[in-house]
């Protein structure tokens, strides 16, 4: 059985792009908000890695990160963002993120980071 991965991004086209990259190798859950991410994690305890967008309209990705880390500490989190900003990356790492990918990304970047976090 393939590993389960959660993708959380408010834009459908981004979710579809990540699905194109990871879809052949993993079991994916696509959601468009932090609220849905938490709900999905609650119902699928075996999700191992989550990819989170930082800029989302209602609750931003860093807040979602904090909430996931407090409720589901076993889930590895990779932040995906348009900001190439050292402070945000450091803040994400401090809050417990295990990876930080800047858009536009290469498919290998996503594949490798996910693979690394699953091993």
């Amino acid at each position, binding site marked *: 059985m393939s590993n389960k991965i959660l993708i959380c991004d408010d834009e459908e086209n981004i979710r579809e792009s*990540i699905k194109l990259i990871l879809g052949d190798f993993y079991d994916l859950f696509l959601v468009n908000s932090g609220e849905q991410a938490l709900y999905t994690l609650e119902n699928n305890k075996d999700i191992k890695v989550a990819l989170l967008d930082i800029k989302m309209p209602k609750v931003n990705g860093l807040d979602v990160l904090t909430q996931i880390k407090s409720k589901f500490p076993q889930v590895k989190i990779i932040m995906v963002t*348009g900001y190439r900003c050292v402070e945000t990356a450091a803040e994400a790492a401090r809050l417990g993120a295990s990876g930080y990918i800047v858009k536009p990304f290469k498919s290998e970047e996503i594949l490798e980071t996910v693979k690394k976090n699953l091993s």
Partner: protein
Amino acid sequence: MHFHLNPHTILPLLCMTLAIVCGIFVILQNPRAKLNRLFFAICITFTAWFSFYIPFNFNYTDQILLTWFRASYCFISFIPITCFTFITTYRQIPRNEFWFKINSLLGLTLSLLSLTTDLIIKNLSYFPFYPYPHAGTLHPLLVLHCIYLAFFSIIIMIKALKDLSLPEKQRNHIKYMLSAIICLTFGAIDFIGNYTSTFYEIGYIPASGYLIITTIAIIKHQLMDIQVIIRKGLIYSTLITFITLIFLVLVITIEKFSQNFIGYHQDLLNSAILSLIIALIFIPLKNRIQLCIDKIFLKASPIEIAQQNELLRQEVIQTEKFKAVATLASGMAHEIKNPLTVIKTFSEYLPQKLDDKAFLKKFAPMISQEVNRIDNLVHELLDFAKPAVPILKPTNIHNLINSTLELLSNECIKYNIKIHRDYRLSGDVLLPLDYNQIKQSLLNIFLNAIEAMKTGGQLNVSTYARVDKKDVHIKIQDTGTGISPEDLPHVFDPFFTKKDSGTGLGLSITHEIISNHKGKIFVESALRKGTTFILELPSA
């Protein structure tokens, strides 16, 4: 009990009123804030201190006077600890509970001792102007308590001032507070009167300076006012000191004169003559002192200070502009990088999936969508950066509003939004406008209003003119979700958006267009009640 106005008490009693007013004013601003409550407590203790001067106006017996002073000292004993707590709270310094308790206990002990024993104050000394309590054996303890807490407060503020990492605004606030504490420390000169019988009490003047500066520091958070405030504080303190001295000399002279030559004491006449003299010298004296203080303390004339303030103001505006550019850049990053991600992923997979029909069918439209998105963004940005110069033509404003609203009639029906028009200007109102630009501005505002009323509501559009009829006002009011007070100052910032879709450029473009028409745009909003935009357009 006979009332007999003692002129020496007028100023301290005015200061007492000031203390009460400052205290009530600050507590009413925000009764739940700890800082405001502490300041209110300080004002109460100061009121008790200045109330010292009330009984000098009545022919009370020494016994009653002494009881009155004891009651005042009861509060005065708490001034050091309340002021110190205020400073630590202000600087958000974690409190050393043990130390705090010891000091509070000391305050309480001093307070009880002054009320019940002769250890803090005992019998009265008779000054030429009024009686004053004499220091008891333990009085020096109270003085020391004041001095050492004042010392620590000043140290705390100087340390804060040396911390260059603090933002400029906060450092200015610290300057306020430091000058306030130093002012207050001078108020301790009132204690000298407890030890000698010839000292004229003026501690209420610096203490009032403290109250005024602190009140302003709490209420106002302005950057440039610090110099002005300190300057005004200095001018008026010096002025009051001067006037008090003149007052004193005059009172004594006139009293002597009226006793020796007229033969009896005539308060009303004295007061009238004094008021006249003071009224005559007040303004010239004030101007003189102002000039001196400007020269000595600020090393500049009022005009130079005004110029410096103007420079500071421009710096602030510049900083705000840089902030807007920063928001613009980070907004750009997000808005462009998302479509780029989709395009990049597609191009990466295209060579290997050339024959995959499902892939092509799904991604081909996505790519054109994302390219359009970037294209639109670039257009909007260009509009924002350099909106075309408006081509002004006399335009009927009501027709323009109506045709814009027509564009939205379907949306309004969809979301059950009623439109209410209230055009108070009669006849054809022709304004010099760029038809398309103003239409775009109105459209942006209307679209935001509709966005905020997706569960139904009312859109009120009214036009009216001010009495002088120079400008025409367009008021657009919705009954939607409203904008939070934190977000309100940013609604015109480029890329600022709380919506699921949209670039956040709409209202900033509107702002730009209205400014280019030499008009003004204002917004007010209350959460869950709605938002109102007011446009002011020049009629000629």
